[in-house]
């Protein structure tokens, strides 16, 4: 009787074939890549008309700064934003996931999202993973019930506060908040205090650096101020920066090719336009 092999369709789900290989390589001394973390200083405070969120923009992989200008203030809803500290992948994905859930919830209920809804979704997800999802978040927004600010921890606990700081630079930022925070500040005062707190983290914490991002949320809307302050400009040897006049590099040969009309349909139908 001949042995026949049957081609089974792939089972679907995850394939863990490479895990054994990775474990073997590690045992042989190969260094595994470190997680990309956002060392981070993130803050939030409640002012007269709403909530101000602030964040630095440095992302680190071990001791190396892998992104000098990353975005740590994530979108959750038109009236809610979330700063993320911890493992970048975890903060990015958990906020994306809750943002999608909130949108579906808005369609189902026909109402604007509330901050406590986002809070409950985040805390139940994080608690379920028992701290394995390393996301520490400052969640803020304005909904029908007013302005809200919450700190969310990786194990799933939450704090509701008038001002909050998280991340490796949180102690430096909290020092600024504890001395300068007042209830019912104006927008300008609030922004000043938030910038002072983030700068304290940028200059005193090695895991935080580069620029200050802000997000001001009020009943009227959300204002994302990307790179509101840039206290670490790039320095060049010459004041004009790098400048290369043409003729600096010798051209040995040149060939110019048009990139359009390179695709020829050999067989089958051309892909439909719409």
């Amino acid at each position, binding site marked *: 009787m001949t042995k026949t092999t049957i081609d089974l369709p792939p089972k679907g789900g995850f394939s863990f074939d490479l895990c054994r290989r990775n474990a073997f390589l590690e045992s042989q001394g190969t260094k595994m890549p470190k997680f990309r973390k956002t060392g981070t200083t993130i803050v939030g405070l409640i002012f007269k008309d709403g909530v101000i969120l602030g964040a630095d923009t440095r992302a680190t992989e071990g001791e190396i700064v892998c992104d000098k200008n990353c975005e740590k203030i994530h979108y959750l809803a038109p009236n809610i934003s979330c700063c993320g500290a911890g493992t970048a992948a975890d903060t990015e994905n958990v906020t994306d996931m809750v943002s999608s859930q909130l949108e579906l919830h808005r369609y189902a209920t026909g109402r604007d999202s509330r901050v406590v809804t986002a809070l409950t979704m985040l805390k139940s997800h994080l608690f379920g993973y028992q701290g394995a999802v390393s996301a520490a978040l400052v969640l803020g927004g304005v909904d029908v019930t007013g302005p809200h600010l919450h700190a969310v921890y990786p194990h799933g*606990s939450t704090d509701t506060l008038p001002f909050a700081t998280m991340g490796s630079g949180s102690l430096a930022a909290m020092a600024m908040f504890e001395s300068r925070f007042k209830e019912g500040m104006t927008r300008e005062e609030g922004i000043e205090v938030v910038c002072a707190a983030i700068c304290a983290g940028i200059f005193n914490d090695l895991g935080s650096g580069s620029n200050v991002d802000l997000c001001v949320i009020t009943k009227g809307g959300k204002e994302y101020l990307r790179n509101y302050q840039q206290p670490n400009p790039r320095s060049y040897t010459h004041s004009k920066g790098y400048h290369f006049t043409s003729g600096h590099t010798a051209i040995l040969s040149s060939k110019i090719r048009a990139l359009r009309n390179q695709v020829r349909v050999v067989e089958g139908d051309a892909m439909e336009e719409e």
Partner: protein
Amino acid sequence: MDAPHSMGTTIIGMEYAEGVILGADSRTTTGLYVANRASDKITQLTDNVYVCRSGSAADSQVVSDYVRYFLNQHTIQIGKAASVKTAATLVRELSYQNKSFLETGLIVAGWDTHEGGSVYGVPLGGTMLRLPFATGGSGCSYLYGFLDQAWQPNMSREDAEKLVVKAIALAIARDGASGGVVRTINVNAYGVERNFYAGDQLPLFYDELAPRPTLIHF
């Protein structure tokens, strides 16, 4: 900074003549850093039942959320207020059945028509014990002797409240993981009343200095 969020804590539940008083400090720590110096560790379960939380912040928040949800359904089903014993039993069930995953000590207290004021301690492991007064958290070690001597049955509201505040102030003085302000809740037949005692309103004991206004001005 990466240590789990925990409430070092001192929590107290105490019966008095007309009802119960619940008291707690307000310090939440992540390792050696005070993550929240003004937490509210006394959480509402129903109109007439409250719970003091200690241990892991996440675990205690999740357990109280589940019990609040179950009690809400239960109240709809029976058509009247839930009893304190029922609330405590639900807390005990969750704590006991999940004992290997949870690290939280809770004190359930409130007022109902069957028993009047009652206090139930539900420590780590999921025992449930009805007591005239219960303490919990890292600061409770310093209160056993004090409360054994100072607690009397059928105290007045003022005396009971003063006793709770004094006890928590004593624990705060000796326990590094407790601090901040003292929050109390008084539950009796007439309703619920919240109180708040800032640092400068607490009694001072041996070797403690009076708080002074800040020297920092901007």
